[in-house]
């Protein structure tokens, strides 16, 4: 069982959260011509690293906020959690 520290609610059980995937993926900018390659990168291509992974989680059965979690995909250790608007160096 993962215990995830929601920046708003504190430590809560994994059961209250829904996963949202890689948080480093950026949507191509609005109001700009987007190439097929840029769409491909955004929609389909993922680094899927073994080790540190910055990811989105949704505290869906709690405060309903989206948060960022820095987690190790090999050991499941959670290093830190952030608000969705926080800039995180990885």
């Amino acid at each position, binding site marked *: *069982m*993962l215990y995830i520290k929601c920046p708003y609610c504190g430590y809560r059980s*994994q*059961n209250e959260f829904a*996963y949202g*995937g*890689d948080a480093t993926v950026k949507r191509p900018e609005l109001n700009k011509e987007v190439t*097929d*390659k840029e*769409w*491909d*990168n955004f*929609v*389909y*291509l*993922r*680094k*899927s*690293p*073994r080790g540190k*992974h910055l*990811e989105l989680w949704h505290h869906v059965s709690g405060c309903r906020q989206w948060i960022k979690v820095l*987690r190790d*995909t*090999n*050991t*499941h250790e959670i290093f830190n959690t952030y608000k969705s608007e926080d800039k995180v160096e990885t």
Partner: protein
Amino acid sequence: MQKYSVLSLIKNAFSSHKDWEVAWKDQDPKKEYDVVIIGGGGHGLATAYYLAKEHKITNIAVIEKGWIGGGNIGRNTTIIRSNYMHDENALFYEKGMELWRSMSQDLNFNIMFSPRGIINLAHSDAQMNAYARRGNSMKLNGIDAVLLNREEVKNKVPILDFSDNVRFPIFGGLMQPSAGTARHDAVAWGYARQADSMGVDIVQHCEVTGFDISNGKIKGIKTSRGDIKAKKVGLCVAGSTSILADMLNMTLPIETHLLQACVSEPIKPLLDHVVTFGAGHFYCSQSDKGEMVMGGDLDGYNSYAQRGNLPTLQHVLTEGIAMFPFLSKLKMLRTWGGIMDMSMDGSPIIDKTHIQGLYLNCGWCYGGFKATPASGFTFAHTIAQDKVHELNAGFRLDRFSTGHLIDEKGLGTKTWIS
């Protein structure tokens, strides 16, 4: 190679079974090969076998970080089927069914293929319609499919919950009678033994640490046991694909996720078929030892851990108990996890890459085991001929950017949602 038969069994009984030849040799890596296959699982060993058998290329090494058969070929729920709707998948997996049926004879190794049939349960009229459509598509591709009504399902699997007050009543199901199960380890061992006998080197405990590429062409690989030159290199590493892709500066349309399975204590024969829940994700069959073999959803977050977490197991087994109430009385014998290469449309990738001489086999999602022979067969063709076989022509790496997706389930790119 010593042939396995009743006679060889009797002969060896006289020497107290002490004189059997080893089934395959644990080789040290040579300096150079025509083809190096990275990954000594089912797909890698099958690829080596078909390269040697069909294409007469025998100067091959299968490089395995751990031991052969220790990855997903030893961690699956042994289900074999071809009940797909889209042509690319249906024809590919049906080729697999053909190879499964003759595999014990071809490999001279009893893989215990048991075509006991798979039943996908339907829990609404709409689902029955969807299954009728899928069954018709299967028949058009020459695959056996039978639409069962509620009474027919009840006759075949009376142990299911047919009471009136269930949340997801059983309306019927779609059956593929020729589907079934096989002994998973035997598949790896059978392919390894035959490949070895044709001159393939099986190199275990040898981790790939890098690639030697010059002018866009593969020259060899770097490993924990030294550099190995190779004219061609094939990747068959399932959940570890993204790690090797990173060494190649490639980003792939796959994510690695964790999938659990479990078996109960053994009980007397009770379940004659493979049965899947239609209102969630749970499947169950009974092994020859009598254990109920069960599986379901991914743990739901990127993971390379090969071990699972309890919330998902609880969720999956809740579905199981909704289907088979008796399961709640059984003790759990074992649970385990494996790491899946989840592709963004749920279908695999078997293709060439932008690097000449480097070939990619990945994206097997939940269903790598049943694909083992067809994957090896088509990947061997792709490597030997340097062009895709017609059966894997749809499993292109660039189908995501060109929009030719094969999204069997219609799930989209959130691979962890099921």
